[in-house]
């Protein structure tokens, strides 16, 4: 899916933080990490879409990962970062609270998701790794963009 199986282990992930959860975004899908920039709202867009931003002349649609994961909205003024990922020839910005290191994790260490994980999280994640006594959920990029039902039309 997000990874060709021929890829040699270990796999690289950009670790990010959303709420209290560490999440790994497959490194090969990441194009850029940017500081907060001006974001223009898109009326009627799905709830998770924070808006559009202009990255060096390209229009990028920003998805708020807190909303995508069903967490409470970010407090006003709280710092955040955007991870630019590529999907189907388009660029998207995933808004997260913090961006950490690139982690190289051995594929063999990947564990299945706990069955008790909430369904909306389950479908977003491919698996998890243990890292520094914390769990790192692996983000499924494709599923990330399967958004909730469109916003209610006016």
């Amino acid at each position, binding site marked *: 899916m997000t990874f060709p199986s021929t890829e040699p282990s270990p796999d690289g992930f950009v670790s990010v933080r959303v709420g209290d959860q560490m999440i790994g975004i497959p490194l090969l899908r990441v194009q850029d990490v940017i500081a907060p920039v001006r974001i*223009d709202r898109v009326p009627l867009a799905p709830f998770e879409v924070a808006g559009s931003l202009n990255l060096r002349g390209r229009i990028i649609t920003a998805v708020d990962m807190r909303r995508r994961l069903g967490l409470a909205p970010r407090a006003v003024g709280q710092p955040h970062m955007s991870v630019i990922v590529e999907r189907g020839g388009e660029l998207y910005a995933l808004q997260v609270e913090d961006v950490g290191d690139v982690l190289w994790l051995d594929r063999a260490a990947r564990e299945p998701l706990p069955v008790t994980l909430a369904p909306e999280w389950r479908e977003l994640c491919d698996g998890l790794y243990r890292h520094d006594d914390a769990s790192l959920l692996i983000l499924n990029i494709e599923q990330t963009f399967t958004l909730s039902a469109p916003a209610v039309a006016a």
Partner: protein
Amino acid sequence: MDDVINEFIAEAREGIEAVDAKLVRFEQTPDDPDLLGDIFRLIHSLKGGSGFLGLMRLQTVTHAAENVLGLYRDGTLAVDAASVTVILDAVDVVRNIIEGLADTGAEPEGDDRALIARLDRIHAGEAAVQTEPVAARRPLLERVGGEATLDAACEGALALLVASPDTGPLFAGVDLDRVQAEWREALCGVARATAAPGALQGVLLETFGEALAAHDAAFVQAVRQNLLDLEAEAEAVETLLAAAPSETVEGLEPSRVDRVEPAKGPQTIRVGVDTLEGLMTMVSELVLIRNQLIQTLRDQPETPFAGPLHRLNQVTSELQEGVMTTRMQPISGAWAKLPRLVRDLASDLGKRIDLIMTGEDTELDRQVMELIRDPLTHMIRNAADHGLETPDQRRAAGKPETGRITLSARHEGGAILIEMADDGRGLPAARIRAKALDVGLITPAQAAAMSDAEARQLIFLPGFSTAASVTAVSGRGVGMDVVRTNIEAIGGAVELTSVEGQGTRFTIRIPLTLSIIAGLVVECCGERFAMPQASIIELVSANGTAGRRIEQINGAEVLRLRDRLLPLVSLQALLGLEPPEGPRGEACIVVARVGAFTFGVIVDRVFDTEEIVVKPTASILRHLKLYSGATILGDGSVIMILDFKGMAVEAGAGALLNGGEEATVDAGGGDDRSEALLVFRAADGALKAAPLAGVARIEELEPSALEWADGRSLIQYRGQLMPVLCADGSSLTEAPQAKRPLLVFSRGARSLGLMAEEIVDIIEAAATAELAGSSTGVTGSIVVAGRATELIDVDFYWRRCDGLAEPRPATQGAEASSVAAPVRATKRLLVVDESPFVRMLLGPLLAQAGYEVEVASDPEAALVLHDAGAAFDLILADTSHAGPTARRMAVAFGRASAWHATPLLGLGVQSLSGPPQEALLSDVAEVLSETGAATLAQDQEAA
């Protein structure tokens, strides 16, 4: 090698497209040597290329076709339809092979023997007749397979030699095309006996000089081998390639067209579309950066960068233009196949069709062109198949036997306007209706309520085909809906007008390019949006001045703009925006048109028009039909581009978009006295017109909503009972079969509905209509599109509806109603005058002044009214006649006992020669007093 094949395919496709059109033209003008030369060269280079690439099937077909073309060129074969058809067939086969090649990388399987046999028969048939002279004139060329074979052989040989390690280095820095041409010319020269034997060797020596010495034989051998491979006669080949007795290179024809051709080549280069697209993207981004910089410059005009920035601005604009130009292609690219198509259709259908194309040079973006190619083809096909009649039918209809399809293109206001018209039978509205009913696209009620213009729009619905029978050409039910969808997908619009018996005209408007558009930036609730300028008609401020303010009709917002009701949509409501705190700016209305639907969008503020670069919306936002894309503004912010069509649909006008009843006729304009008239058809089929200003609304009358009370037809309308009248002023006696348009007039809080059969049009016409009797509800008549149209008197209907319950005889006073419960709002007058002029003038004048007027042409008619029970507030009678007439009147009024309390006003004409008025009046008064008439008004009024 793949690159070579791809190159060949690209070239071949282009060539074939051109050859179709050229052959058709050639058939009509067979004596155009340039045209034939072009065709020959195209087929010829195909043959050469296929030989080189080892595409045997292609080579044999082109070879056979070329033979026939060769006969044309030599003038030994007359150009006739039969042989051109065979060649066109050959071109089709070539096309198939090329497409197969493009798909699979290999020649598709196929049997061309029949085709080749046909070509050969034509070739041989001619050759048989002229064997002797031909053989005598061209002994060698014929035997080695013609010029084409020679060329192919040269090309093949060159390829071999370049690839060979021995001879390859010799070709470093040499123009292969030129060498090939030289070789071919040399060989042709020998073959035609215009050059001495050994010409090839001479050319070789000239090109390669001393370096050739060691490889001379190899060169000749390569050519020889290729010739033999191409099935040239061995003996002939030897003659051709025989070494020269002396080194003469003279004798070549100095100015052959082929010779010039290679030099022309390098003036154009083939660039991959991807490369251009990439370039375009880069330029788009550059434009954005430029915009940002210019924005900065506006803020800081004193910056030392001002000079360079202005220069950058200019260069960027030029660059953008330049890149745009590279993507522009003449529309003839999309039209190239059409002449052939029409020719084939004509012969298939047994029709005679002229295709007239104008504006082929009109350039448009290649992306746009690709997208309109299929719709256009389809429409032409439709026109030829359904639109045009057979020669017999045309003759019977008094038209020339040859039908005509005209296709024109031109630039108009940043868009391309393509018009396609035929002079055929037009679109039969009745049949379309029936057909749509048949296939269940509309209900019978809808069908009945539909105007002809609306019915014709049905052809744009999916699954519709007007053809009574499905022919091989069209009528398979995939059609105009796809055309419309395709055109609208690229932001275009297609409109249709048709006159039965005279033809059909489609007007297609498409944007020049899809990448950069003029956009109007607007603001609503603090958010900015761009609107495509192309759809915008005007901007209107609705601040209450000039009588323009936003009105509410049952919650729907409308604007009365120049006597039209303009439906409005609020961007705020549409997008679900939060109204900002504090006072908002004055509402501004952007009036836009989508198809036939004109509507206004309420926004808070309008900024500037900018050239905006359209970027597609992200796929996760693509379900939002209100947006057609996004763009980046000069300040770097990202805004959405609104889609008017999406807005119209969202606003509930989806049905209207498929209708398009609003075909406004401009009557020259500028005439202040002209006013907008709503033309409708009454139940009896007569055309009537009402001043649009008086029409409050047009509703749809549901038959089931009709109720009757006390003989009056009513509907419940906005919490009130509203009387519904027929156009003749009477109540409806039964519900109509289907929905009908209902013209709603308002007076104060009251409403009145007038049922029409169908709404025909809204026109601008001078309101000064001929005066006519008012009692029929008609204030005059005007001519609309050549047909007499009665201008209705709205007051008449009000009176009708007010006095409907009281006995109201018609003008003739023939029938009488029963009950009398008059609740009269206005004074009622009776005019009795024998002069039609006075009646016609006075009636409307008084009616206009607010009176209800009945007119009687003589005292007896007035008496009939009296007997029918009519009551009046004042009677105006002509008292200018002396003698018997006055007496008749007096007698009549004497008998009209119910009117004895009614004041009577005598009318007289001041006539120079007539008898003194007093005498007349006294005459009447005398009689009246005899009969006891109560009052006689002594006033006189000159009529």
